């Protein structure tokens, strides 16, 4: 499963857990805060991905601005995973 699929699966899981309705389809330009997840759901997504992937790229890469779109969000995880390889 690639990182994009992992994030989408985690989004679905979190939406179900927090009783949110996720929009379909999630595309690269989808704005995360308009994806159906509220800000707490977004925090849960970061928590879920930390459990699955073992990284919190926002803390580890000291990212100051949280990404707006799905593509930007995925790119940060890709960068975080890349970094853990070295």
């Amino acid at each position, binding site marked *: 499963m690639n990182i994009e699929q992992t994030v989408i699966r985690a989004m679905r899981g979190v939406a179900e*857990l*927090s009783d949110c309705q996720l929009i379909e389809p999630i595309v690269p330009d989808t704005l995360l805060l308009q994806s159906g997840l509220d800000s*707490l759901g977004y*925090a*849960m997504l*970061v*928590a*879920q991905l*930390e*459990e699955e992937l073992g990284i*919190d790229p926002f*803390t*580890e890469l000291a990212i100051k601005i949280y990404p707006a779109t799905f593509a930007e969000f995925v790119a940060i995880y890709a960068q975080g995973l890349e970094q853990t390889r070295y």
Partner: protein
Amino acid sequence: MAEYVVVTGASRGLGLAICRDTLASDLSVVALARTYSPELQSLSEAYPDRCHFIEADLADLDALPALCKSIVKRFGRPYGLVNNAAVGHDGVLATMPNGEIDNLMRLNVQSPMLLSKYLLRSMLLNRRGRIVNISSIIAKTGFNGLSVYAASKAALEGFSKSLAREVGKAGITVNCVAPGYMQTDMTGDLQGEKLASIKRRSPLGRLASVEDAAAMVSFLLSDKGSAITGTTMTVDAGSTA
């Protein structure tokens, strides 16, 4: 391991009493402190499967994300967090060293915020959890020589109220316990007439003990405390009545 609570400043005083009381319920404890005191060691020996010590200097803020990650990795998702670790330098503000102010605010305010940030993520996924922040009656009453300490505790109370609103719908409660003067190492300098006067003025004619305050923490951690959030529970033998 059974559901567990992370307790900071666990080696002595109130933190140790909280560990003892929590272990007496069905919860396990991950005890954080700079030193492994003989008292905490005995407690770990009495509950070898349920009381785990981790050495940590919580004023080292940069180390907190990794610390939380290692706790979750080793023990699973925490049920609760008790932010008890604090320093209480006293002295008039005009001559208090700036480094002391900085150190106090790091340990008493920023550290509980960061521990809450990283440990409540697991609670969000569990859709249940408890955060208890140890404040002090000084946050509201004030006390000569404790202005910075008082500010740090008032900050924790404000933090707790807002965080309670933020995470309530995920089934997580956030509260403060505000003890009055207790005879611990932190208040060891409070002696003689000053101490006698505090006891005399208290409606119950005594000080609250660390066990009294720990019992309130246990209550908030228990199922019985599930409807209490965003508030401060005072345990002071009536001193502020």
